[in-house]
């Protein structure tokens, strides 16, 4: 379970119709309260929350769509992650690049062997997830990409 932050709790409370919210999680304990005086706002917000919930559902479905659209490319082995063939060369790919199937994405060095990782499809590179020269584990996400 991912850690819950104070911001998330308050934002959630703001968006809700609740009068009181008491959250304990690990070392964190938060109590949010909204008194009657604020309730006119709340009632309005309640009116808003109904569609908001719908909106959330749309967001979720959007996320589901996102999930189809975005994916990560993970390491098939344990090795060192390099974005370029040598320190002086330009990187194979950078954020925002459009990549065609078969293009080299990075090099994974393992036991002095340079393994080129190539694209299995056409994507846009959304984010490079591993630092240059870092140890990557098996199945560690290396790139976030958007499917084209």
């Amino acid at each position, binding site marked *: 379970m991912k850690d819950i932050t104070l911001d998330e709790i308050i934002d959630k409370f703001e968006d809700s119709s609740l009068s009181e919210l008491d959250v304990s999680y690990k070392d964190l304990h938060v109590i949010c309260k909204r008194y009657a005086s604020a309730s006119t706002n709340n009632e309005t917000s309640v009116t808003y929350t109904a569609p908001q919930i719908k909106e959330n559902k749309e967001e979720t479905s959007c996320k589901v769509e996102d999930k189809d659209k975005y994916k990560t490319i993970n390491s098939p082995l*344990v*090795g060192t992650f390099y974005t370029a063939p040598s320190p002086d060369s330009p990187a194979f790919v950078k954020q925002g690049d459009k990549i065609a199937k078969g293009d080299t994405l990075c090099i994974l060095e393992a036991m002095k062997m340079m393994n080129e990782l190539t694209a299995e499809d056409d994507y846009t590179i959304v984010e490079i997830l591993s630092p240059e020269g870092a140890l990557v584990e098996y*199945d560690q996400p290396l790139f976030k990409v958007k499917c084209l």
Partner: protein
Amino acid sequence: MKKVLIANRGEIAVRIIRALKLLNISSVAVYSQADKDGLWVKMADQSICIGPARSSESYLNVRNLISAALLSRCDAIHPGVGFLSESASFAKEVTDSGLIFIGPSHQTIAILGDKIEARILAKKAGLPVTPGGFEPIRDLDHLKKEAALIGYPVILKAAFGGGGKGMRIVEKEEDLESSFNLAKQEAMQFFANDTIHIEKYLTHPRHIEVQLLADGNNHVIFLGERDCSVQKNHQKLIEESPSPVVNEKLRNTLKEASIKLFKELKYKGAGTIEFLVEDDLCCFMEVNARIQVEHPVSELVSSLDLIKEMIQIAFDNKNSCTKPSPKLKGHAMEVRINALSCGVITKFNPPLGPFVRCDTHLYTGVNISPFYDSMLAKVIVSGETRMECINRMIVALKEMEIEGINTNIQQSINILSNKQFKSGKYDTTLYKKIEKEI
């Protein structure tokens, strides 16, 4: 600060991490995707995922293991038991990568992996061996002659094999040909080498093995024998030291010859020599060039921490090999607790208290997956006598709580309570004989 990668999983990985912590050496755990919640992963200073659930792509994935060790800047790799622990090629790759392999040299592992070569060396060192088995069988004629000389029943074995594969027991001459062909086929299939040798087959032996520790520099110590005769389908269930059937004279013979063999091999690390004992016959079987699951039994009678010693030897640090062989004290016994089903452990309480030890990777909430060895825990006890060990083990197993999956705890208690087991007079056929009662 030194750093060691443990190329293994489960309780032996936990055991090795404890020894590393004792020596103030950093530990790097590896795990497959199925093992991400493994206790050893939580205990190690660092952990690296090396592949999917399937062993061949993770715990047997040499490239990922060595890469993980190199990239996490380890000094050495401990192979544990099983998996790559007796792979000469893995040991060589580790050494070639500039890492220390915590175990014997790859040359020693290779020599001992050739069962014919190992038998010849053992005989030369003065260890008792069964008749036959000193040369590869050339053809059926050669096999017939050898079998007639040795006397039936005989056993055909893959020279580079192990684990029961490529083995055929032959009761009479007319079965020789078909068994020879089948053994060759299996040997080729499993070990990529169809060399076969023939030995006398013992029908009701005890399984006895001796524990040695050597520094690779002409210092070898002997830590007594273990009796592992309670076996289910060749899987050891209960081990103890000393053996109820090894007398002082036999022990001294085994000690002298074993030390001689290890000195000749320039052996480095912990190693075990296995024997079959039947009536007055004691016969060398093979050398296990690694630490074994049942090593705690020898630790308790010798008061030596074998995993610590292995690591110290590998790093050429101060170790116990330069001292005389330790005086062995009392009796020790181990029971292997195995899973009989898979699932989440909803409750785990180990047995505690005096002279009881529990080596395990269990904790409440862990999931036992079907991918690996079914061993969950080893319970090891020590006492003044064998009978005290049996009683203490029964108390400990009754105290142990594993909920959520089925285990062999109750069956182990039943074996320990069995009259023939208690008498000490039995052989490797015991389990089959009493299977219905226990």
